[in-house]
Structure formats: C-alpha cells, structure tokens
C-alpha cells in the first residue's frame, strides 16, 4: 500500500515538474477570470437587477414593455420571449428573482469541464507513452514492483489530476464569482431553463449534478486515451483519437440513431443528465440503468485492454 502511494507520489512529481501542466492550470484560471469579467461588463442587465418588495409589479411592467418591443421590432423576439416566460414563472410560483451571483457563475462554468476533459486526455495519453519516449520505462519496470501496480498508480494519478483540476476550477470560479457578483447566501435557490421548462432548485445541488454528470465523459475519455497510450505507446495517437471521438461523439450518435444498435455506442450513454428533469433520452427505450451498465462494460474493456497491453508485452527497442 505504501508502495502504491509512493508510486502515485512519483507520478505527481513528474507531472508537476513539467511546464505544460502549469499552463493547464493557468489556462483555467484565465478563462475563469475572463469569463467573469465578460459576464460582469457585457452581461444582460436584467440579470443583475435587484428587485424591491413590489417585485411582482416590476416584473409585470417589464413584461409589458418587452411585449411592446416585440411588436415594433421582430428580431427582439426570441430573447424577449424567454425573459417573459421566466418572469411569468417567477410570478406564478411566487419566487422573487435574485440578482446573478457567484454561485450561478460557478454553475454556468460547468461547461469548462470539457476543457478539463481535454487536459486530462492529454495527461492520460502521455503518462505511459512518455516513459517509452524517454526510455525510462526500462528503469521503471526493473524494480521489485509488479507491472500491474505501476499501471494502477499511473491510472490513479490521471484521476487525481482530473480531480485536482476540477477542484481548482470550482474554487477559482467561486472566488471570481464572489468577488465580481457577490453571493446570495450560503446555498441560494436558482431558477433554470431546462428542457421541460423552468425549474427551481438549490444551487449547490445543481452544481454537484452538473459537474458530476460531466465527470462521466471525462473519466470515460481519459480512460480511453490511457488505453490507446498503453496499446500503441504513442501519445499523439491517443490524444488525437480521444479528442476526435469526444468532439464527434454526439454527431456519430445522431448519424447512426436510425439503427437500433446505436444505443450501445459509448457516446449515446455518456450524458446521464438525459434521464433527469423528465427529459427524453436520445434514443427511445434507453434508461439510466441501461446507460450505467453500458458505461461499465466499456470501462472494464478499456481497463482490461490497457492492462493486457502493459503487462504482457515485451519492452524492447524504441
């Protein structure tokens, strides 16, 4: 056990000794700060509006004005319609609108988990193949430690790295959000426009859900890149394939959705959020349980293939 911890420690040291790793953290920080500034200075004014005690009347006045605008100018249509619908939701459910705050900023930034996926794929793709590239694999594998354990330490290191990035993104978004927008309390309620319409939930729950669901894609694609790296011992190929599939995944599913077997495609199942909030799954007949089983099968295949390639094959030549 202490053995495994030492191996993971070694991997983390190698990881953070490289500039590229720090560039990843810097990039996330810059996006978190930049996004905050853009929202602050170029965001929709109504989002930041503070309503008084008579907020129902204020909302109704707003809606009247928006409707008038729409009659004059046709382009204003879509945005105005959305705002009107939201205002009606607030009035009907007796929920006082809150100004945009740091929590909401954190929630919005959950789309940045795809950037984390990208960075994790890069690290996962390199963590085995780099040892081959440097030739250090030969020194690593002649210690009294099984190859399985070395592989495990590398895989766990990738996950730890992803988790570190995630915590970093959450913390920096929250700080930037708190400084720029303030906070509406410890765990305020937020109103979101989801597929079936407007809903109100507590913000921390929403943050956990939204970041949590995105972890599925992250872990699956990182594991995939890890496998390619273990099999082909080349990081370029692993990065290329994993990123291509991540980007093209939804398109592939859409393209093949006419076939019944398309529900077994990995990317048809990575978005578990499709089963929440009463949404319809991409392909009829799928369920949360079905997707979780499919995901587990893929995961086991990826890990088994990595293991077989890493532990069974000769380490010769470069």
């Amino acid at each position: 056990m202490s053995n495994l911890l030492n191996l993971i420690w070694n991997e983390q040291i190698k990881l953070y000794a490289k500039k590229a790793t720090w560039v990843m953290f810097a990039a996330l920080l810059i996006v978190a700060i930049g996004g905050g500034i853009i929202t602050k200075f170029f965001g929709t004014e109504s989002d930041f509006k503070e309503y008084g005690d008579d907020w129902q009347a204020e909302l109704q006045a707003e809606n009247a004005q928006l409707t008038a605008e729409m009659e004059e100018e046709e382009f204003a249509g879509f945005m105005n319609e959305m705002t009107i619908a939201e205002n009606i939701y607030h009035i009907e459910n007796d929920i006082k609108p809150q100004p945009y705050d740091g929590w909401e900023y954190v929630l919005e930034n959950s789309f940045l988990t795809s950037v984390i996926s990208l960075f994790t794929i890069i690290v996962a793709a390199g963590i085995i193949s780099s040892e081959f590239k440097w030739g250090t694999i030969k020194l690593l594998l002649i210690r009294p430690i099984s190859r399985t354990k070395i592989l495990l330490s590398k895989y766990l290191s990738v996950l730890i790295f992803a988790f570190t990035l995630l915590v970093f993104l959450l913390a920096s978004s929250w700080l930037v959000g708190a400084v720029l927008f303030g906070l509406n309390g410890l765990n305020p309620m937020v109103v979101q426009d989801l597929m079936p319409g407007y809903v109100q939930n507590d913000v921390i729950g929403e943050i956990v859900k939204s970041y949590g669901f995105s972890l599925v894609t992250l872990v699956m694609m990182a594991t995939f890149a890890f496998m390619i790296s273990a099999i082909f011992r080349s990081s370029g190929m692993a990065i290329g394939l994993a990123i291509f599939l991540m980007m093209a995944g939804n398109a592939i599913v859409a393209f093949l959705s006419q076939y019944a077997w398309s529900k077994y495609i990995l990317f048809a199942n990575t978005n578990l959020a499709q089963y929440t909030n009463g949404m319809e799954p991409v392909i009829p007949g799928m369920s949360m349980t079905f997707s979780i089983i499919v995901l587990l099968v893929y995961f086991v295949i990826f890990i088994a293939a990595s293991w077989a390639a890493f532990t069974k094959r000769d380490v010769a030549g470069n």
Partner: protein
Amino acid sequence: MEVYILSKTAMQLVNLKKTIGSKPIIKGLDFEIRAGEVFGFLGPNGAGKTTTIRMMVGLIDITEGDVLIEGKSIKRDFKGAIQHVGAIVENPEMYPFLSGWKNLKQYARMVEGVSEDRIKEVVSLVGLQKAIHEKAGRYSLGMRQRLGIAQALLHGPSILILDEPTNGLDPSGIREIRKYIRNLAEKENVAVIVSSHLLTEIELMCDRIGVIKNGELIAIEEVRSVENKEALKEVYIEVEPLETARAYLDNHLSNGVGVGNKELSMSVKREEIPQILKNLIEQGINIYGVRVLQATLEDKFFDLIGENSIE
C-alpha cells in the same frame, strides 16, 4: 583462480532462448556468473547482448529456458529475483526535466529502505556531487552514464548489470568506472555483468569474458589465465644503430625480425626477452625502449568472432 570456483552462483542462464516473430535471436545460452566476479559479455553489434540482458531483467519474455537470480526464476518469481539486481539497459535514460537528485529519488521511493544518506553515498561514489542538482537533460552522456550507475546501485544489489557502461565515457571516466566496478566485486562481493563490443574497454576490469555471436555463446575465457608462458609475443625494441642490430638478430632468431622506422619487431616468448636485450648491449647497440604488445586476448577474440556479419 580457485576463489571463483568456491564462490556461489549469483546468476544462472539455463538454455536461454528468444525468438522474435520467427527469427531466433538468442539460441540457447548456458552460463553462470558468480558472486564477486566481473563478467564481460562481449560480442559484435547485433550479437544479442542487449536482448539477453532484457531477458535477465524481465523486460521481455523468455521464449525458452530461464534466468535464475540468487536461485529465483525471473519468470516465476519476478519480484524475488529482480530485487537483487541493479541494471542499465542500453542507454542510461533519465527524466530530462528532473534533476539528477530527483531522478534518484524516484527510484529510491520504489524500494524499501533507501535513505537520503544512501543516495548521497552513491552520488559521491560515481563522482556526481557537483552536478546532482542540475536537470538531467543538461547532462553529458558521461554524466548520464554515471547517474545510470548510481540508479542501479541505490538499493545495494548483489548483481549489477551494465549494458555498454563505457559508452560515451572519456578515458579517465572509463578508468574510474573500472576502478569502482573492481571495488564492488572485490570488496562487496557483487557480481557484475558488463557488456561491450570492444574488448579493450572491458578487458582490464573483467575476470571472465563470455563471447556471444549471432545469439550463441562461442567462448568463455578466464582473463588472467590467458597469460601463457609458451605464447609468442610481439616485441618492439628501439635501437641504434638499426642496421647492426637487425643483422645480428636476423642471425640469432628463428622467426626473423621486422624493421620499422627506428624499431625492430620480433615474435618471441616472454622468457627470451632478457637474453635478447643482454646480447644486444654486448654488441655495443644502444637500446632506447622496449614495448611488448598485449594483443594476445584481442587476437584470440578476433579469431573467434571473425567477420562481423549481422544476420
């Protein structure tokens, strides 16, 4: 020489074979290396030295046969066997972005009981104290070679395997390595295996030399036993006047003499040399220098290896 016969076997190769694809690369090696001995593994490029070493340390599968390290099979008890081994396989590659020290720390963390003091000890043994905190990427080949040896020695192995350790070292570096390899063998009873394609580079540090060619062991020689009284040696004597000396020796030596620029060359037995010199002096010939060529081993191996044909 009897010492070696008494000392225990550190590593044993049993009918070791490797086939890659359908090509037999190693065709059945059988020999053993004893504790406290420096074993030279000599062979031309492509002979199969690195492939054999890779099998010894479990980097590649063994097609047939086995390697026993301190009695333990590398195939069946990898951890039990490899814990006795320190090795450099092919080039001494290091993490270029870590300092020499941090590179060593990586390997120290992978085994039990390597203290900071032990790392320092090994660093000074290979003479790398000054550069140890520089990035390994900036090391010269010789420095990397030293760091590679340090890495192999960290856990105090009883068997040290060095694939071409003299590669990239300057003459003084080779002399130093030779010195502490001899030291390790003699003082700490370590079995050392050094591979090379150059006899001259390992001849002086080895007790025995095994010659491999095309994946087969074609000879094993005790280095010191090659000293043979009856063997003819190439002797060069710088004399003046050259012509008088040549005429005199021509009449007295059965094999005749060769004439160089200022030297005469002749093939004689070692015990004949003093008499020849005495005679020359009695003839009033001045002697400025005598050289005895130590080429016997080299010639022998050259005869064994013959043309270096890579299959």
